[in-house]
Each structure stands twice: as C-alpha cells, then as structure tokens.
C-alpha cells in the first residue's frame, strides 16, 4: 500500500523533473505574481513586512492552482487514469499517491519562493524563515489535499482551470485566513500563533480524512 503511494508520487515527481514541466511553470508563475504585486503596491520596507503574510499566501495559492491544473494531466495520456483505477489497491491509496506527488512539488516551489520574496521586497525576516516555512507547509497539506480532489473532480471539464479556482477558493478560505494570520502573528512577535495553528491543523485533518473517500465515490462508475 505504501509502496503504491510512493510509486505514484515518484512517477509524478520524477516525470516532472525529467520534463521540467510543472515545477518550472509554477516557479515562474510565482515570480510573475511577485512582480505584479511589486508593481501594484510599490511597498517600502516597512509596508513590505506588513504585506508579507498576504503576499506569501496569495503567491502560494496561485502557484498551487497552476500545479493542480496539471496533477491529472499525466493521467490523460493513453488512458493512464483508467489504468490507475484498475490497480488492486484501495482508491484512497491512489488519491494519496497523487496528492503526495503534488505536495512535494508545491513545497519545493514554496521553499524556493520564500527567500526570493524576502530578497525582492527587501524584507528582513530571515530569522523567521523556519517558522514561516512550517506554517506554509502546514497550510499546503490541506490546500493540496482538497485541491487534488477538486482536480480529479474537474477532469475533462470545460474551462477547468477557472472552475478549479472557483471551487478551491471558497472551500479553502478559512485555511487561507488562518495561514495569513499565523504568519502575521509570527512576524509581529507578540501575536498569538497557537489558535491559528490549531485552526490549520483542524482543516488539514478534516480535508485529508474526507478527500480519499470522496475520491473513491467520485471514480466509482
């Protein structure tokens, strides 16, 4: 079972590194988002520090959407998705495999984007990098979990990228709010992080406990 999860994730990550497809588009999309923010707000150092939590999460959300748009693209070639469903493992295992692959790629992009954001916006918060990364990772668990399900749901839908954004945004709104507030609390040094972390954990647990079953119902024909 774990071998199957690992193998699906490996297939997606290795495939992506070989083709340099999703990872680099996510990365460059994230950079474009940062450029747009810079042009729109032109923040000074102090404003940039205040904007940083929102900036990071908005960039994360947009890049996640790019990644999610492609999660099941590899499965479109030559009926591969059908092949996955014929595997003799529970459907939840297939879901976790796809989720893990997407999660690894998204985390990789986040780890690259965080220092880049700090450099580009002249923000001095280097000491907080591990904490901020941990919060981003915690939020990304649930974000990609729900996102992978929605990506499966919109397979073969018309204008799926727009649809994916339309579905993901309302459902993850509480998670995004908690994520932004948690990072803001870290940066403010006196802020309360704990309640927001609790909220993030609750959402991760709820979404990751529900989505594998939902995936199973979704593919049952």
């Amino acid at each position: 079972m774990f071998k199957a999860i690992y193998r699906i994730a490996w297939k997606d990550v290795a495939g992506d590194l070989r083709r340099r497809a999703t990872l680099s588009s996510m990365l460059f999309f994230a950079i474009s988002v940062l450029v747009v923010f810079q042009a729109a707000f032109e923040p000074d150092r102090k404003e940039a520090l205040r904007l940083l939590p929102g900036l990071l999460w908005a960039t994360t959300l947009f890049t996640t959407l790019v990644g999610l748009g492609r999660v099941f693209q590899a499965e479109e070639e030559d009926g591969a998705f059908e092949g996955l469903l014929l595997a003799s493992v529970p459907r939840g295992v297939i879901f976790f495999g796809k989720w893990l692959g997407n999660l690894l790629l998204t985390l990789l992009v986040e780890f690259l984007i965080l220092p880049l954001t700090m450099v580009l916006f002249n923000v001095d918060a280097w000491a907080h990098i591990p904490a901020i990364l941990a919060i981003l990772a915690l939020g990304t668990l649930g974000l990609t979990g729900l996102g992978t399900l929605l990506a499966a749901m919109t397979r073969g839908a018309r204008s799926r990228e727009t649809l994916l954004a339309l579905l993901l945004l309302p459902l993850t709104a509480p998670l995004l709010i908690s994520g932004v507030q948690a990072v803001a609390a870290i940066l403010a040094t006196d802020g309360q992080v704990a309640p927001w972390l609790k909220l993030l954990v609750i959402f991760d647990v709820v979404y990751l406990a529900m989505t594998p079953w939902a995936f199973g119902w979704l593919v049952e024909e």
Partner: protein
Amino acid sequence: MNILKKIQPLVGLATLIALAIGLWYVYQAPADFQQGGAVRILYIHVPSAKIALLSYLFLTAASILYLWKRYEGADILAEAAASVGAAFTVITLASGSIWGKPMWGTWWAWDARLTSMLVLLILYKGLMVLRHSLDDPVKGARATAILAIIGAVDLPIIHYSVVWWRTLHQPPSLATGENTAVHITGPLLPPLLILSVAFILLGLYMVTVKARQIEARRHLDALEAARMHHDE
C-alpha cells in the same frame, strides 16, 4: 416526482397567505427607536439569510441521499436547491448592503459574517457551474454531490463566525442555546416570525417549481438521445 406536482399548488397557496399576513404586519409594525423605517429591510434580510443557509442543509441532505441510494429525484432536488439558495444569498447580501449604507455608514465591510456569506454565494455558484461543465450528466451529478458535502464543512464556520469573532455585524437577534433572550421587542417581532415562515414556504415552493422544470428538461434530453439512437 409526482408528489411535487401534487404539493406544489398547496405550498404555493400557503406561501401566498403567509406572505400576505406577514406583509400586513410589516405595514402595521412601528419604526425602530434608532433605525426608524429602515428596520423594515430586516424583514426581508433576516428570513432570506435563514433560507440561504437552510437551502444548503437541504442540498447536503439530498446530495448524501443521492450518493448513497442513487435516487435521481434526490439529485434533481439538490440541483433545484442550489439555484434557490443562491438567489436567497444574493437577496441577503443586497438587502444587507442597502441596510448597511445608512445604518453602518458603509455598503460593505470585510467582517467575518459578510465574508462567509459571500463565500457561500461563491460555493453555490461553483456547484451550479461544476454540474454543467462535465459532459456526462451522471458524472456531473456525482461530482456536484461530493462538492456539496465538502462545502457543508464550511457551514458551521459560517454559522459560528458571529459568535466567535468580534465583528461589525450584530449577533443573531433570535439566538438559541445559551443566549435564548429575544432581542426584538413588542410589535417588531411578529412580522419577523411570520415572514420567516413565509420565506421557508416560498423557498419550498421555488424548489418544487425548479425541480419540476429540471425533471422536464432531463426527460426531454432523454427523449432526444433515444431518438438519435433510433436514427442511427
């Protein structure tokens, strides 16, 4: 779906009577000591907000039933409830805005209650779009039902947002639980209660109308598909 055909006129009649009584009470109700005549907007706003949330509960129940037993009727009711719920969410937001401008001094504030209501509207829209973006109607129905159940997780947050968070929006006036006190006094209360009932009936009526329309359209589609098959 024959039962819908039978109950539709009854529900319609009950709605009309309840609305008539309710509106008469609204006409009779005095102005609020602070808000003046604008308090009357709340007679639309509060019941609409109730229906907006109740529709989602209804939709979730129908979705679970559809996934579990695969009754097509449950799916039709879910589809109908989505559009009715969306309509009442729009009414809630619009009437709230119209009340908020003179009272609060702003059309809109990004507080927890307003934000979560807007989120609910986007969710309804997502349900409606998802269904018709998938070419296979059965796949569309199943995906929509699953999305509805996941969205139901957001409902408690919307409901409790006012209780948890210190917001611009006032707490519910007809709260239940530990805060059972009714905050609406004297002749201002009956129209709100009667109109709440009237709006629930109206919501039901709209669901039956919409469901019958969806049923008819699906029947037509099936006939069309069968004819194409014959021609082949």
